[in-house]
């Protein structure tokens, strides 16, 4: 297979990606021969029906899993060639994750949850605290630093999660249904926040969503159906 040299402006370049899971003895292919380019600074909404492989694709972009075949280049690194240890290190410096259910550590305060990724950096304790405070301020939660997750609303928890994703200043954010568990108004706030991070701080964002309204906050939309990228359905949602 020939691989096009990634453009210097490319954030994500995928070529010939397939992903198969073992189900019993049977390998089941979930993604079929996917080619995908996402330029730096883009905000992409990844849409598609349940089970179409969105999370699977996002996990490959975020370096949480490796493809069965094909190449994944993110921010210039060939993720498919990294060992799991190298991938872990790459994730800690290059990508931030936001999940549907926030996934904060319940026994740690907001501040400490945000500090967590910085444990992997050479920063001193004082610097870690300062960076975390800045990130919390950025998401509008400076006043909640000492609260534990159970003392926060869903929207606030998601803001903490976004601060945690931002704190080590990665160029790429991957979000799996970040508003899937929030009411419409709170969802709009979170989406505006992501939009701001994209527009003002140049963060590249790939966001999985079911919700066409949420997708409208993105610059581009891509659609996945049964493991294949398809042109945007014209018949609306």
């Amino acid at each position, binding site marked *: 297979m020939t691989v096009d040299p990634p453009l210097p402006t490319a954030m994500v370049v995928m070529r010939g990606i397939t992903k198969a899971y073992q189900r019993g003895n049977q390998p089941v292919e979930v993604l079929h021969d996917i080619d995908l380019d996402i330029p730096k600074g883009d905000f992409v909404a990844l849409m598609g029906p349940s089970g179409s492989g969105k999370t699977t694709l996002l996990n490959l972009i975020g370096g949480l899993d490796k493809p069965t075949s094909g190449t994944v280049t993110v921010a210039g690194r060939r993720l498919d060639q990294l060992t*799991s240890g190298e991938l872990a290190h790459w994730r*800690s410096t290059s990508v931030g*994750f936001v999940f549907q259910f926030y*996934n904060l550590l319940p026994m740690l305060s907001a501040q400490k949850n945000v500090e*967590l990724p910085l*444990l992997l950096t050479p920063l001193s304790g004082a610097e870690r605290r300062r960076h975390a405070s800045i990130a919390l301020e950025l998401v509008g939660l400076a006043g909640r630093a000492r609260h534990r997750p159970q003392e926060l609303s869903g929207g606030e928890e998601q803001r903490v999660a976004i601060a945690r994703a931002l704190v080590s200043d990665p160029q790429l954010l991957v979000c799996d249904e970040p508003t899937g568990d929030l009411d419409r108004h709170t969802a709009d706030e979170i989406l505006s926040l992501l939009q701001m991070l994209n527009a003002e701080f140049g963060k590249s964002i790939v966001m999985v969503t079911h919700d066409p309204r949420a997708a409208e906050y993105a610059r581009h939309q891509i659609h996945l159906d049964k493991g294949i990228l398809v042109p945007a359905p014209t018949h609306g949602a």
Partner: protein
Amino acid sequence: MGYLGLVFAGLFHKPSRTALTLLSIVTAFTLFGFLDGIRLVFSRAADNSGTDRLIVTSRLSIIQPLPIAHRNRIAQIPGVAQIAYANWFGGIYQDRRNFFPNIAVTPVEFLAIHPEIVLSDEAREAFLTTRTGALVGSALAQKFRWKIGNRIPLQATIWPQKSGNNTWLFDIVGIMRTRDERNQQYAGEMLFRYDYFDEGRTNSQGTVGWYIVRIEDPALSNEIALAIDRLFANSDSETKTQSEKDFNLAFAKQFGDIGLIVSAIMGAVFFTLLLVTGHTMTQAIRERIPQLAVLKTLGFSDVTLLGVVLGEAFAMMLLGGCLGLGLASIGLPLLSDSFGGQLPPLSVSARSWSLGIPLMLGLGAIVGLPPAWRAMRLRIVDALAGR
């Protein structure tokens, strides 16, 4: 917050459960501290034995007397340097609960054979010249506020006086101390003179409870012991000769094999502890699978997660274990006080700690490794999806 913060955050994820687990660890190690302290006292009695001393008792039983005539015949055996003899008196001071060993001994020989007993020159002199003189251990003197010059009465339990009087009077002429801090054998005992005892008692005159034989070469102790026993074989008063160490061990074994009992109890306790904490730990980690997956997502390596979970197990065991041994260090001296001198002073020694801490680490490893291994092998995508 550093990695230690992460370890403790994990440990106190469910504070009440962790508190209960800690309590069981504290309890187990408190018990360990108590039992090991008691075990060490018994094994120390053997450690403190002189290697150049043999104890000769009747072959029939330790309380069966031997004729005093044995003395001169033992003295003729080559390699025997000096002979003392002694008799258990069993007197009571005021109240049965005040029990302490009081023993009639031949003053010159006994002190010569037991150089570990430290006495002032005046006390030694007074003991040799005062027929009713008695030497008391420092702990005993402290307990009853006895001073040199005091005259104290003991009620006979085995040996009434010829006069029909059951009360024997003794004059305290010296306080016994020991050179070695750990050897407290004489601190709680009283020694007095054999001649006073033998002349005063109504029966069994001219007999001896046991002989203490000092030999010139400790390497020959087996041969000399055999030679002594052979000398009296087939006589009316056959003997049983042992090294002092074996004698002390045998004496301690009257109460059962303490070491074995302690090991058996602690084995059962720690086994139960393993089951309980192992189960809780496994359950705690299972509940925290999504959290561990998040840590991995953020870039924490497999080995770091192994370390964090193992760290929790170690922290829990060390915390509970040190608390438990700490409690035992407070409780054990109180226990030995309540025995009032019947037991040598008990305490949690450095030896218990140096056995306890590796035990804590070992238990931590056994309890922590399976869940730590699981955390290490966790696949992020499966864990995040709740698979």
